[in-house]
């Protein structure tokens, strides 16, 4: 029943995608409004099919229908409810099913947003392209990634294998993957409008305005997804870090980099009509990188903690990627002459020049990460020799680019368009620059070392001072002009230009992230010790004493937790309990660190082994500075993105 419902739903969604795309594209070509209207109605059917497919899978998962192979492979009778629900995106086929649902929701939202322009050719083409993308994913589910395939057994198994141990060990599993998918999938909307603009020849600024919110929504989801991924890595994997330049982490970062470049360069096109080809290329690159990321994650070509098992869909994804690139680049080549714009950058010290430099750095960052990620695949394909690119490559290459971006982020928002004078520059940059230099001096006096770290602290302060100055001047002007109080003036200032102030809030979040990354990468300390009961180890100002172990067993897992008393300067900070769990059906033990989070630093405790023959545990103690500010920075970026999405409040002048 569930299998039949699921397969029927997916077939319905695929058929409606095909029919809708044909009607919309055909309608746009023939200028037939009736066809276009019919095509748009197909979107509702696609949405119903996608919801039906996910509902059927959740039904099967939660009723332990082991006749479905996916259910048998990914849940067990003892799997807690939360991880039974999240098993939907715990493996290849289910994750594609979620992808289909998120895509259908985005297409539905886009169709609703443009409901009054349903017969506009650019909207018809865009919706047609969206449905073609949906058709590809639903076809995958009806072919090589069938989530409703039956178990290869004549007898229905009485229990399943359960999710991968790592995927049932932390509630963040419920949030991190869906956020990433929402980010990935959301970029289908700007991509479809870029293609529609190229096809219809309307590649002015209209399509940019049409997709601004969709781009921001997708970017916001991807940002949150990446930050949550770092948090999950920190809280679950137990190695003490949050980013390992793992190929799949890189795959999520790549579209984020190009999308961030696009969000900035789009302003240059809106304001000056320049960078049309560049903006189209960035949107296409962002979408293509989401497909590449999907290929890296799901084809089994790379070994990673994130990679799903080997599957046949790699070749499908590669073919789809090739079609996307050939079609998009072909259209750009075809429209080459018409895309040229007469505008030019008047001065190297202007906002558009700063945005251009920022775009080059983002593109360089993406290129460095892309090459470091795919190079091992090329070497293995050509020489049949497994190889990996070490972390030092990524650190060495991306640190100067990151510093450059922090500098531009501090400077660009205060530069005027077209040109500036030295007096304006001095007026706008002097105070933030003094704050930045003073911060560098103070941090060095306090013991900071490392050029990159000190530069990051100084540029962070420079940027933050510029943002605060910008807000302060705006609020002061409102208070003087309207006699408003601080709270009302601040709110109205932001509501009057949410795009500018939301962007500045996002920048403040990036500053927090940049400073936290610099501090944690440069000043983390790690100590390993074998401790018997009653023995202590000292790391920095912390004394950690092993009190004893306790065992806990549930049907889901068996856990051994070590009780550790933590003291600092004679103050008792409490008992912490890092643990190691083993799960039925999985040979790998999973460590769960225990973290004492603080504003200044985290104390990170993880077990490498439970009591051995000598009664000693293996303990890794890390002191990680400013980690909390990473997650706060991510939250601030989300808040800024939400502000950017607010409608602009127009004031009535009496």
């Amino acid at each position: 029943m569930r299998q039949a419902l699921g397969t029927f739903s997916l077939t319905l969604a695929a058929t409606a995608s095909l029919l809708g795309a044909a009607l919309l594209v055909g309608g746009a070509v023939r200028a037939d409004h009736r066809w276009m209207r019919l095509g748009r109605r197909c979107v509702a059917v696609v949405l119903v099919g996608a919801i039906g497919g996910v509902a059927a899978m959740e039904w099967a998962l939660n009723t332990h229908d082991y006749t479905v192979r996916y259910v048998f492979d990914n849940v067990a009778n003892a799997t807690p409810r939360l991880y039974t629900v999240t098993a939907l995106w715990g493996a290849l086929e289910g994750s594609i099913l979620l992808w289909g649902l998120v895509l259908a929701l985005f297409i539905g939202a886009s169709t609703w947003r443009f409901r009054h322009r349903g017969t506009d050719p650019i909207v018809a083409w865009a919706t047609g392209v969206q449905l073609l993308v949906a058709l590809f994913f639903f076809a995958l589910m009806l072919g090589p990634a069938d989530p409703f395939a039956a178990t290869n057994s004549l007898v229905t198994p009485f229990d399943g294998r359960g999710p991968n141990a790592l995927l049932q060990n932390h509630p963040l599993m419920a949030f991190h993957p869906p956020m990433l998918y929402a980010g990935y999938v959301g970029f289908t909307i700007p991509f479809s409008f870029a293609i529609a603009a190229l096809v219809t020849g309307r590649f002015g600024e209209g399509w940019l305005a049409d997709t601004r919110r969709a781009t921001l929504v997708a970017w916001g989801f991807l940002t949150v997804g990446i930050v949550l991924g770092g948090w999950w890595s920190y809280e679950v994997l137990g190695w003490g870090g949050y980013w390992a330049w793992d190929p799949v982490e890189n795959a999520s970062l790549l579209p984020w980099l190009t999308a961030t470049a696009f969000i900035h360069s789009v302003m240059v096109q809106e304001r000056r009509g320049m960078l049309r080809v560049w903006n189209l290329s960035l949107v296409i690159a962002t979408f293509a990188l989401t497909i590449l990321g999907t290929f890296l994650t799901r084809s089994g070509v790379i070994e990673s903690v994130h990679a799903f098992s080997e599957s046949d869909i790699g070749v499908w994804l590669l073919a789809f990627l090739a079609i996307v690139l050939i079609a998009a680049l072909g259209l750009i080549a075809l429209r080459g002459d018409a895309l040229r714009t007469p505008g030019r950058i008047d001065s190297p010290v202007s906002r558009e020049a700063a945005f251009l430099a920022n775009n080059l750095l983002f593109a360089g960052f993406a290129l460095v990460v892309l090459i470091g990620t795919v190079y091992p695949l090329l070497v293995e394909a050509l020489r049949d020799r497994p190889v990996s690119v070490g972390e030092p490559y990524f650190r060495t290459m991306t640190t100067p680019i990151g510093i450059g971006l922090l500098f531009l982020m501090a400077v660009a928002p205060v530069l005027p368009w077209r040109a500036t004078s030295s007096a304006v520059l001095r007026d706008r940059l002097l105070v933030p620059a003094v704050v930045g230099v003073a911060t560098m001096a103070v941090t060095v006096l306090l013991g900071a070392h490392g050029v990159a770290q000190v530069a990051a602290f100084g540029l962070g302060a420079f940027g933050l001072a510029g943002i605060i100055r910008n807000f302060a001047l705006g609020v002061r002007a409102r208070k003087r002009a309207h006699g408003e109080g601080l709270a009302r003036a601040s709110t109205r200032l932001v509501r009057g230009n949410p795009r500018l102030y939301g962007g500045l809030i996002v920048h403040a979040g990036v500053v927090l992230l940049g400073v936290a990354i610099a501090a944690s990468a440069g000043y983390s300390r790690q100590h390993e010790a074998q401790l018997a009961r009653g023995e202590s180890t000292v790391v920095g100002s912390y004394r950690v004493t092993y009190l004893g172990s306790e065992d806990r067993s549930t049907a889901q897992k068996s856990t051994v937790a070590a009780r550790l008393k933590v003291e600092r300067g004679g103050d008792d900070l409490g008992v912490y309990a890092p643990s190691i769990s083993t799960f039925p059906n999985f040979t790998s033990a999973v460590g769960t660190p225990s973290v004492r989070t603080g504003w200044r630093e985290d104390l990170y405790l993880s077990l490498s082994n439970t009591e051995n023959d000598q009664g000693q545990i293996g303990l890794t103690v890390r002191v990680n500075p400013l980690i909390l500010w990473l997650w706060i920075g991510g939250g601030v970026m989300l808040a800024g993105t939400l502000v950017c999405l607010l409608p602009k409040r127009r004031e009535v002048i009496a």
Partner: protein
Amino acid sequence: MWRARMKRVRWVIAAVVCAGAIVFMVSQLGANLNYMEPVSKAVKQRESVGDKQIRIGGIVVPGTLATPARGGASFELAEGGVVIAVALEGTPHETVTNNPDGCAPVVVEGHWTGTTFAADRMLLKHGAEYDDDDHPIGDAQDDLDCNA
């Protein structure tokens, strides 16, 4: 005339900067490549590799893991009928330490010091089930009669 010359100079500067960046990137890439070989192949290539940083994949031989109180670990790594001694700086993965009698498939990163492999990092593919008959680690698990 002067403008055209300045434009050319700018393009030349941009080209030089780009070329320099590419050369730097390629040199960094080359310096940070870690080849991964199964134990049997790594032993054959020991002389030619010298003290370069490499990765070796194999199975931890049951009962060989030692974790001295001063830290670090030592164990034997096997694959293709060949066994090597590994001295690990740092902590072995909990899958290995908590299952000393099992056969954990691991990848160690480090360099050769004589016939011992000095590893500074241990990697492990979580939840890995090497069912593939052609996979060297899968074969090694069969050789060692592993239950993993």
